[in-house]
C-alpha cells in the first residue's frame, strides 16, 4: 500500500466529490430545518412553547359550587344543616357549567332539556357511596366528621318489592339534601 493515496495534497477525485455531496446535504438540511421548525420550538426547552397556551384552550364542563347557589339558595340552606353539607352540588348532579351559564345569560327563560342536570335518587345512585363495602369502613383517629360515610347493605335495607313493581327508591324516604 503506497502512502501517496492518503496524502492530502493528492486527494483522489471521488473523495472530493463525496465531500461536496455531503456539504450540499448539510446545507439542504439546515435550510429545511429553518423552514419546517415551528417558531416557538426550543424557546423553553425541547418542545413547542405554543403548546402550553393551546392546552389552556380546552372547554370546561364543571363549574364551582358558588355558581349554583346564585339561584338555588333554598337548597343550599337546606343542605348546610345536614350531613351532606360538604358535598358539592356537582358530585351528584354532574357537570353544570353550561347549565349555570345559560341561567346567567337568559334570566327567567326556560332551560332546554339538554341542559337540565341529572336528578339522582335511585338505589344505585346512592349506593355508589353508601353501599356496604369492606374497603369503605375507615378507622378515624384525627378528624371525626370528615369521612364517616354511612354504610347500608342495599340487599337488606328496605328491598324493593319486585312483585308489586314498586321501585323503593332512596328518595322515597330520605331527603338527599338533608339525609
Amino acid at each position: 500500500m503506497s502512502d501517496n493515496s492518503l496524502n492530502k495534497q493528492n486527494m483522489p477525485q471521488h473523495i472530493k466529490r463525496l465531500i461536496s455531496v455531503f456539504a450540499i446535504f448539510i446545507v439542504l438540511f439546515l435550510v429545511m430545518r429553518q423552514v419546517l421548525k415551528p417558531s416557538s420550538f426550543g424557546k423553553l426547552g425541547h418542545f413547542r412553547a405554543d403548546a402550553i397556551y393551546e392546552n389552556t384552550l380546552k372547554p370546561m364542563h364543571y363549574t364551582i359550587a358558588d355558581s349554583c347557589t346564585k339561584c338555588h339558595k333554598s337548597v343550599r340552606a337546606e343542605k348546610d344543616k345536614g350531613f351532606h353539607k360538604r358535598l358539592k352540588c356537582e358530585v351528584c348532579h354532574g357537570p353544570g357549567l353550561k347549565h349555570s351559564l345559560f341561567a346567567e345569560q337568559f334570566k327567567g327563560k326556560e332551560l332546554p332539556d339538554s341542559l337540565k342536570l341529572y336528578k339522582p335518587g335511585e338505589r344505585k345512585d346512592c349506593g355508589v357511596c353508601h353501599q356496604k363495602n369492606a374497603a369503605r369502613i375507615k378507622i378515624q383517629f384525627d378528624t371525626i366528621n370528615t369521612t364517616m360515610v354511612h354504610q347500608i347493605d342495599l340487599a337488606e335495607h328496605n328491598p324493593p318489592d319486585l312483585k308489586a313493581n314498586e321501585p323503593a327508591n332512596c328518595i322515597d324516604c330520605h331527603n338527599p339534601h338533608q339525609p
Partner: protein
Amino acid sequence: MNQDTTKLSRRNFFKAGTVLASGVAIASALTPYDGLLFAAESPGAKGKWYGIGIDINKCIGCGKCANACKQENNVPKDPFYFRSWVEQYTIKNDGSILVESPSGGVNGFTQSVPDNEIYKSFFVPKMCNHCAKSPCTQVCPVGATFETEEGIVLVDEKYCIGCRYCVQACPYGCRYIHPEKGTADKCTLCFHRLKHGLQPACFEICPTEARIFGDLNDPGSKLNYFLKNHNCMVVKPHLNTGSKLFYNALSPEVR
C-alpha cells in the same frame, strides 16, 4: 507499518491523559451530578410547583373522580381509556392479592369477596404522577411531551406522531392513545381550569376531600399541611421518577 500509524510516545500518552482527566474533574466540580435530587424539590424554587396528595384512608371508592375526569376532558367512554381511575385492592386471608377496577371505577364498586375472607381492603385512586424526571418525556422522539415550569407534564397534540413510545415508558400506566385523534393523551391536571384559578375537576368533586391539590413551593398550602401531618409515600420510589403524587397510608402491595 504499525509503528508508523501511531506517533504517541509513552510520555505524550500520559500528558494527554492527565489533561483529559483533570478537565473532566474540573467540569464535574463546576456542574455536580444531580441524579439524586429528590422529587418535591423544584428546579427554579420560585413560582408554582404543583403536587398532588391522596389520602387512601379517606377514599370511599365512589369513582366520582374518574367520572368527573371523563366528562371534563372528553375522554372516550370506553372502559379502557382513563386519565384518572380507581382500583380496589383486596388482600385475602390466604395472602393473595386481588386488584379490581370495573370500568375504572366510574360507576362505583361492588364487593366481590365475602367479608370473612378479607384480611384488608382499600381503594387506590390513580392518575398521572406528574413526575419531575418523567420517563415519558425523556423517551419522546419528537419533543411532543414536556414539563411546564409549574411541574405539569403536558402533550402537544399537534406535534405528537402517535408512536406509543411514551405509553410504554410510563411506569404508572397513565397514558393511552386517543382513538380519534391518534395521539398520546394523558392527565393535564386540568390545565385549562388552573389558568382560570380553579381546581382540577377530580379534586373539585371528591366528596370526602381525599384528594388534595396544591403548590409545593408555598409553605402555607393545603398540600404542604397534608404532607407535614401524614406519612406520605410515592408509588415505585425505586424508579426515581421524581413523582409528585403523594399517598397517605399507602400499602406496599400497591403497584
